[in-house]
């Protein structure tokens, strides 16, 4: 039954992601979806649908089929789009060298060889390892089907399916309500306000599909969610604020800017060290100030989870601000000056000018920064955590990348670590795809 379900899902997602406007597109998409699903499920020999396997794995099998159907459908669409865009843009026809066919391949080969061996191959191996039971340094490898994944999740297959689906349905429903309601009506305004919170609902629902006990992933998920989202939001908002402040001419502005951008050059471990010093409960300046001036006991971050998370967030934000400032400054250069001046003369206040003119022009930069900040908050935060808290207290600051290394290297369970890597990989791809959808049509890429 789960097998049939997974192919139905694959057909639907394949057709939808490839483009179902025409019958032909839908059929091709469905075929691609089935192809993707059979490839992945076949390579695992349909093990997750066996009768003695827990039903959580069957659910995961369906999800896997859907994911690969989407990858094949959307991937084919993107590749074809890229092809037609490349051919359409008249990609450098004149002035190209007419030499032996091997020339470009020689020039590209070093790059391609390295990408194949140190990006594509590890990516492939991460997926294969995630279905194995294997230890670091031993050659013994046993197939484990999807057990590495299912042990991260709750045991109830019904909840596993229902929770994310319900939240997606709610988000979809609100969107539909918004489109159907009269512009200007209360419902229209209400749905417009609550629509952006859909992603929060979805992320919140995911919290409950992770197991909370015996090596479950719930705490790690919560840590990652809190720490990463705080880092991204704070560093972008502060970065934009500083860019606004330091844009334009003030005496000595170049020096100010250089000093403000400086923390960008400082490493995550050093950021961890600096904040470790400031937050230290015995020698740190915060403790001293709290003690001497306000007479209260500064909590110890090695036992206080909130403070530990706060320290990591602040250290990372501090390190990231300079980077964001740099790019926002570059972005502000592209804001159409005449429009701002015209709007100012027309009496638009600075908030209006910011919302109507500056924000749309900053769109592409903000999008780029969102992706890079997200990457930073997922991965580079490792160095900060390793120096500040090492995941303490009681795992409250262990984010996904930290847990991957702990499980995969320190305890040597490569398969389990690889499975967590796959989860993180899916999160990165999912968030990027979601960002692309959000930004579609909302960003003006300017005339230049």
């Amino acid at each position, binding site marked *: 039954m789960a097998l049939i379900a997974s192919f139905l899902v694959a057909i639907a997602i394949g057709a939808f992601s490839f483009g179902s406007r025409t019958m032909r597109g839908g059929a091709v998409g469905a075929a691609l979806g089935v192809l993707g699903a059979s490839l992945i499920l076949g390579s695992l020999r349909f093990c997750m649908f066996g009768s003695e396997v827990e039903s959580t794995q069957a659910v995961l099998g369906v999800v896997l089929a859907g994911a690969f159907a989407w990858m094949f459908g959307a991937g084919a669409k993107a590749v074809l789009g890229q*092809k037609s865009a490349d051919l359409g843009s008249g990609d450098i026809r004149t002035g190209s060298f007419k030499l032996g066919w091997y020339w470009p391949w020689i020039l590209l080969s070093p790059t391609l060889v390295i990408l194949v061996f140190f990006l594509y191959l590890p990516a492939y191996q991460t997926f294969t390892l995630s279905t194995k039971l294997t230890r670091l340094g031993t050659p013994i490898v046993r197939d484990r089907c999807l057990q590495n994944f299912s042990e991260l999740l709750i045991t109830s297959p019904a909840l596993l399916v229902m929770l994310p689906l319900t939240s997606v349905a709610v988000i979809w429903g609100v969107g539909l309500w918004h489109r159907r309601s009269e512009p200007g009506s209360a419902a229209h305004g209400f749905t417009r306000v609550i629509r952006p919170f859909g992603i929060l609902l979805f992320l919140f629902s995911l919290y409950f599909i992770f197991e909370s006990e015996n090596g479950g992933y719930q705490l790690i998920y919560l840590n990652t969610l809190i720490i990463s989202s705080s880092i991204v939001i704070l560093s972008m908002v502060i970065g934009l604020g500083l860019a606004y402040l330091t844009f334009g001419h003030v005496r000595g502005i170049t020096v100010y800017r250089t000093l403000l951008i400086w923390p960008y050059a400082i490493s995550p471990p050093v950021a961890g060290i600096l904040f470790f010093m400031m937050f230290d409960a015995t020698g740190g300046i915060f403790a001293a100030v709290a003690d001497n001036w306000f007479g209260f006991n500064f909590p110890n971050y090695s036992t206080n989870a909130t403070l530990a998370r706060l320290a990591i967030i602040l250290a990372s934000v501090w390190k990231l601000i300079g980077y964001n400032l740099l790019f926002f400054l570059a972005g502000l250069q592209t804001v159409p000056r005449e429009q701002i001046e015209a709007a100012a003369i027309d009496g638009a206040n600075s908030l209006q000018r910011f919302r109507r003119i500056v924000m749309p022009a900053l769109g592409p930069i903000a999008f780029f920064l969102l992706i890079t900040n997200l990457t930073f908050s997922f991965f580079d935060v490792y160095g900060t955590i390793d120096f500040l808290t090492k995941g303490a207290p009681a795992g409250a600051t262990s984010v996904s990348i930290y847990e991957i290394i702990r499980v995969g290297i320190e305890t040597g369970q490569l398969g389990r670590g690889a499975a967590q890597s796959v989860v993180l990989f899916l999160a*990165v791809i999912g968030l990027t795809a979601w960002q692309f959808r959000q930004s579609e049509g909302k960003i003006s890429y300017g005339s230049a």
Partner: protein
Amino acid sequence: MAAHNKAGLSLQVGKPGLIRGRSWPKHFGIWFSMLLILFPLLYAALVATQTNAEIFSFQLTPGTGLATHFEQVWSGRNLGRLMWNSLLQATLITVAKTVLSLLAGLAFVYFSFRGKWLVFFFVLITLMMPTEVMILALFRIVSSLGWKDSMAGLVIPFAASATGAFLFRQHFANLPRDLSEASQIDGASPLQFLFKILIPLSWNVIGALAVIQFVFVWNMYLWPVLIISDADKQVVQVGLQGLQTLDTGFSFGPLMLAALIVSIPPAIVFIALQKPFMAGFALGSDK
């Protein structure tokens, strides 16, 4: 300079007028935020000079421990050796990435060949594949090549850059077409064209990429932690770990001093290459 127009608005001449008003609140804002942002560094500089006793007595003036700390960190813990390893790794990767990206950009822009869009897509998609996500598998592969505890293991997996290839592709595509036509008429080979014409026209992009890559590699932490276990071959970011506790127990001063010293090279690179870097991001010319 502010000029007042008829409506009484104060707009900066030739400036976007994003922020209206006098300049002193702006100055104040800038100074305030600068103080906040530089505070962790200033505080670390202060602590670096203090002995543990001075730190615990919450003294706000420079202490007496600087020379001892430097001795402990530099000779005791061989910080120079660690920094040399980092410098070597960062330089090698930066050079390799720049050269490989230039070659890839050259191939993408000045050659037409079958399957180009597919190769392009193949490179493009790697932007979505962060190394860290597959670091366990990468660790296995590099270990099986016997590159543990070696410079090869630190450098080669990171020698290619999709970002760089795109940056140069973009940059070359915006250069005038006549350049390559003229040099072909002169009978120059693609490599001569690259070195004589393209590189001199690309210093800003090369500089911007170099700063980003150098800082990126210098600050790399997770990969060296995994692949290097020999203390002599370790990079400096990881080497800092050994300073968290010295033989005298917990050591704030030496650690802060080392953290500050470690942050100097990327700062030098950043300041030295600031001009091309800012120009690469279209910041330098406040047109």
